[in-house]
């Protein structure tokens, strides 16, 4: 199984249609990767499914960057 970061990157690339090398630690989904607010909701849904975890709404709001997502998922697992 691939590393959490790789799996998260794959979801982001697929969902937002961005280049893989743009998905870096501090890349903001909205400001850098062109996501709208609904995209961020969908990304969280996709993370939940991929990793079999539940991300409550208040936690979802804190996931702004690629790095945030990876950190949160690692802790939640």
């Amino acid at each position, binding site marked *: 199984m691939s590393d959490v970061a790789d799996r998260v990157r794959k979801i982001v690339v697929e969902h937002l249609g961005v280049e893989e090398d743009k998905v870096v630690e501090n890349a903001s989904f909205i400001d850098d990767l062109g996501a*709208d607010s*609904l995209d961020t909701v969908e990304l969280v849904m996709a993370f939940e499914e991929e990793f079999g975890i539940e991300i409550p709404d208040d936690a979802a709001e804190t996931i702004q960057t690629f790095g945030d997502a990876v950190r949160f998922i690692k802790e939640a697992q």
Partner: protein
Amino acid sequence: MFDLTGKCALVTGASGGIGGAIATALHGAGATVGLSGTRTAPLEELAARLGERAHVLPCNLSDAEAVNALPKQAIEAMGGLDILVNNAGITRDNLFMRMSEEDWAQVLEVNLTSTMRLCKGVVRPMMKTRWGRIVNITSIVGSTGNPGQANYAAAKAGMVGMSKSIAYEVASRGITVNCVAPGFIETAMTDKLNEDQKSGILGQIPAGRMGTPEEIASAVLYLSSPEAGYVTGATLHVNGGMAML
């Protein structure tokens, strides 16, 4: 004309006249239908009449937990959820001066809040499939008001505002959210009116007659169809010209 083959539709209030007609119309167009309502017997009867592709999903809409669980149950039973018709509704009529907070709260809970809960539950699976139809059954009184129905009119008007807001948010994902606003329709509810009341009402309807549940169902069928993909945030008034909005 409208083909819903392969689509799964959840209809609340399917034990009533209008809900039953809606479920029958969607089913007739090829959809698998989930029939929800509080009374199981009429739902079973309807399911038996429809035959295949019909599932009975009883639910008390004043029970928040049951409402939140309904979309999941529907998906389990039908294998998907593409169309949601929020048709169930209750009235607790009284003059505003005499309307209790309980009558107010109950009508808002069942008509408006349960609709919100179901919309929330279905948007997620619909976003995933990039296709969805939500049709909320409102009422002419949500636009015109009606003496004795401050609670009902508020709930129905609230559904319109909510539907438009959701429509904005999910339009880019292939999901439409619309309302159908019936006028006076021949149902068990209007059967109770006496002749004087009926003739008074008919005098206000340019078409000179009450509508039928099937005429509401036809509007719902259109808004549920692929053909209506560019219609969202709209309210389709089906009232014989009683209010031209």
